[in-house]
């Protein structure tokens, strides 16, 4: 009998705004579960989350509107629990359970 | 039967793609959308450069057409452009000598060693190769530490140096205290410039020659704009006379006329970087044999992560792209800047040496509400240098 390895999961609320939701089935708010550690056993970071979103949540083929040269596209703001991600170490920030991550595009006229 | 005679030769094969300029040889290259042969291409590059040298010569001519020896300082970064400048100047001198005339110019060739560590073998090996290629010329290396104490910099405006350390350590410490990668790249560039100008002044050179191509000047324009130095662009980009301020604290040591001047010229300013790169493969022997790899020269900026770029690097990448598809735009940026007026002012910035813009500063502080202002007694800096030094 094979015992399924129990992977602890993190519950993360991901929000998209400023038009980005268009890439994610027009849905602004997503509640997702991601593993606590990545394939190297390291705690998951925002970088991991971004890749996860591209692989599993993005429904549009235009990946370059979200990620460019394996980094978040310049012009997209990221807020971690309402604070600018620059304060938290940007993509290196280790995600905690219940975190709210917002991606908002600044790239539209008005 | 009448044999069709092709231009150039009677019995060789007709040219598939004749050179647009001489019609005598196969065109193997494209220059500014025209097919040209190797000789015409190298000739074009040579003449563009030499024309500027000639113009400079006219402007530094003595009275009544007398010919004082033109003495110029060449800033050799060991990169493509400055090496080409060196090569062409050498050819220019050789051409005159071979006709029995005296050398039209004396060159002080300076390489600024930007490593803050000691002896550098790779650099020595490179210089040996250059010396072998150009035996008539003298190459000097000045360490970056020779910037310390230069009077055209207001040292009170920079983070204070630790007197008990070695010069190399003092510099390393200063750089570490600058706010960002961009700041470090910016101050480094300014230091190198100061060293070249100071050396030229102390040897009574008439001009400093730099190897900037059109592309490099366009990059400089945009980078300086992005750093808030729009006001000083005409001074930085255009060829001509620059007043050099003296900030030495000791009034007894101040030179007789406080405002010295030096010419700064960029003879390769009408050529695109790509053209220059091509040129390095066409000389005999090719210049690519002696031009060193990037990391021999660029020690001040080690391999950086994606995020740790400087403004210069961002602009460099931007123009590399633009130059390929829209070269006229690149040239246009430089031409546009050339049209701007050079406004002089009483005071100059203590770090970059450019004119201070007091009117602009006042207005900016008013509209933005910038609290600004450094410590008491700190030197006056232009907007761009404030940003670089104090963040």
């Amino acid at each position, binding site marked *: 009998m094979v015992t399924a390895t129990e992977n602890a999961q993190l519950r993360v609320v991901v929000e998209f*705004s*400023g038009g980005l939701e*268009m890439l994610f089935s027009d849905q602004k708010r997503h509640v997702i579960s991601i593993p606590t550690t990545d394939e190297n056993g390291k705690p998951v970071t925002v970088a991991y989350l971004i890749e996860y979103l591209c692989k599993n949540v993005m429904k549009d083929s235009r990946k370059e509107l979200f990620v460019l040269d394996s980094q978040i596209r*310049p*012009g997209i*703001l990221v*807020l971690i629990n*309402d*604070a*600018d991600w620059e304060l938290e170490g940007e993509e290196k920030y280790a995600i905690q359970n219940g975190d709210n991550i*917002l991606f*908002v595009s*600044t*790239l*539209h*006229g*008005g | 039967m009448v044999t069709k005679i092709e231009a150039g030769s009677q019995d060789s094969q007709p040219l598939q793609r004749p050179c647009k300029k001489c019609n005598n040889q196969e065109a193997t290259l494209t220059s500014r959308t025209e097919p040209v042969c190797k000789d015409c291409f190298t000739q074009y590059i040579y003449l563009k450069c030499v024309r500027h040298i000639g113009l400079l010569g006219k402007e530094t001519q003595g009275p009544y057409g007398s010919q004082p020896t033109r003495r110029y300082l060449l800033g050799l970064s060991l990169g493509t452009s400055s090496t080409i400048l060196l090569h062409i100047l050498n050819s220019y001198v050789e051409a005159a000598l071979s006709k029995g005339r005296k050398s039209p110019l004396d060159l002080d060739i300076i390489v600024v060693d930007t490593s803050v560590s000691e002896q550098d073998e790779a650099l020595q090996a490179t210089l040996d190769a250059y010396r072998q290629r150009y035996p008539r010329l003298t190459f000097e290396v000045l360490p970056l530490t020779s910037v310390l104490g230069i009077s055209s910099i207001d040292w009170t405006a920079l983070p204070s140096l630790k007197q008990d350390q070695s010069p190399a350590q003092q510099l390393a410490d200063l750089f570490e205290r600058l706010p*960002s*990668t961009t700041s470090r790249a910016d101050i480094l560039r300014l230091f190198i410039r100061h060293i070249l100008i100071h050396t030229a002044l102390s040897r009574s050179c008439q001009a400093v020659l730099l190897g900037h191509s059109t592309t490099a000047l366009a990059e400089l*324009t*945009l980078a300086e*704009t*992005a*750093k*808030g130095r*729009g*006001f000083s*662009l*005409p001074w930085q980009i255009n060829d001509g006379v620059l007043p050099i301020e003296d900030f030495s604290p000791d009034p007894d040591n101040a030179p007789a006329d406080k405002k010295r001047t030096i010419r700064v010229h960029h003879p390769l300013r009408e050529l695109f970087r790509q053209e220059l790169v091509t040129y390095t493969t066409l000389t005999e022997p090719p210049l690519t044999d002696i031009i060193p790899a990037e990391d021999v020269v660029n020690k001040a900026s080690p391999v950086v992560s994606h995020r740790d*770029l*400087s*403004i210069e690097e*961002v*602009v460099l990448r*931007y123009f590399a*792209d*633009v130059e390929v*598809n*829209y070269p*006229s*735009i690149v040239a*246009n*940026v430089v*031409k*546009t*800047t050339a*049209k*701007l*007026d050079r*406004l002089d002012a009483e005071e100059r910035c203590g770090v970059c040496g450019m004119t201070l813009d007091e009117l*602009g500063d006042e*207005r*900016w502080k*008013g*509209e*933005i*509400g910038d609290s600004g202002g450094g410590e008491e007694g700190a030197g006056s800096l232009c*907007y*761009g240098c404030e*940003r670089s030094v104090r963040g």
Partner: protein
Amino acid sequence: MHTPGRCFISIFEDEVHHTISSSKLFFPGEKVAIGASGGKDSTVLASVLKTLNERHNYGLDLVLLSIDEGIKGYRDDSLETVKWNAIQYEMPLKVVGYDELYGWTMDQVVETIGKKGNCTYCGVFRRQALDRGAKMLGIKHVVTGHNADDVAETILMNLLRGDLARLSRSTSIVTGDATSDVKRSKPLKYSYEKEIVLYAYHKKLDYFSTECIYSPEAFRGSARSLIKNLERVRPTAILDIVRSGEDMARLVPVNTAKSCACKGDVAPAVVAAEEDGLGGCGSSNGRSSGNEMAAMEKQLRQNEAAEGLEVDVSKQMLPQAQRDKENVKTLPIRGVSANPKILGKQTLGNCERCGYMSSQAICQACMLLEGLNKNRPQIQI
């Protein structure tokens, strides 16, 4: 910028207030129209102005002014946002349509000329529409939501274009003066786009954020992407560019002897289609696109060739550009203006056709309309 919610909102509002008061943008009792597109910039502008008007007693009479380009599916939605804003901010709303102003909706324009150069039309029409709409309401001051990123981008584009005249105008916070009918200002000129997005987020403001369906999605190679990359390296670079631009504007040589910009030294190498460089697509707010670069390159090469032949460049440009339905527009040879008023580097008169204020004999909108109306019977399916 690094402070959470509440604090951020008040800092942002204080900064805008400072800009407004030190530039003396308004006077008490003034009627001001807010150019409202439903997008983030104008939504934030309306919200901030309302707040500051009340908090600091500017005494302003604020009105929302919205333009309907007539693009089905796009404008309908953003207009809904504006209508909602009007209710939220308790401001009167005036909607002016291209059809009532020009007899053409953008849908109709695109049907006629296709998707190349349509942004040019939209931009020219939009700019005039705002002014005309304001005049209809008896208003002489229009404010737009242009932010620091927009201004920085315009500066870089004008540098790339070689358009010094436009460069100097694009950096002033107010354009137009007592002699012009309607003046425009940009109270958010020193606010980063990032701050505007964050303000809208923290204040939970609704805005419309989809790209115009007709505008080309060209981001790479444009000045906009350069700005964003610079921002990533040094966030203050955007304002530093604005500062550079303002300073460079003062270095532009003044050509008092020559009244015609296309013969003077300050003539741009490439004339952009829009009067103040902040046009282009009505929705993209003057952002540049890859197309513009290609068009500029082409124009510059033609100029170089023309200079080589020592032909009057303006004449040389004319036939080429008329065939060229790209974003680059050539001004026609100047006729005598009805009321020449020297304003800086260009003379301002009135359009012979419609009376709109213009530096040409015939204003740009009328020029474009002439072309459109000729093509009307030839609409291709």
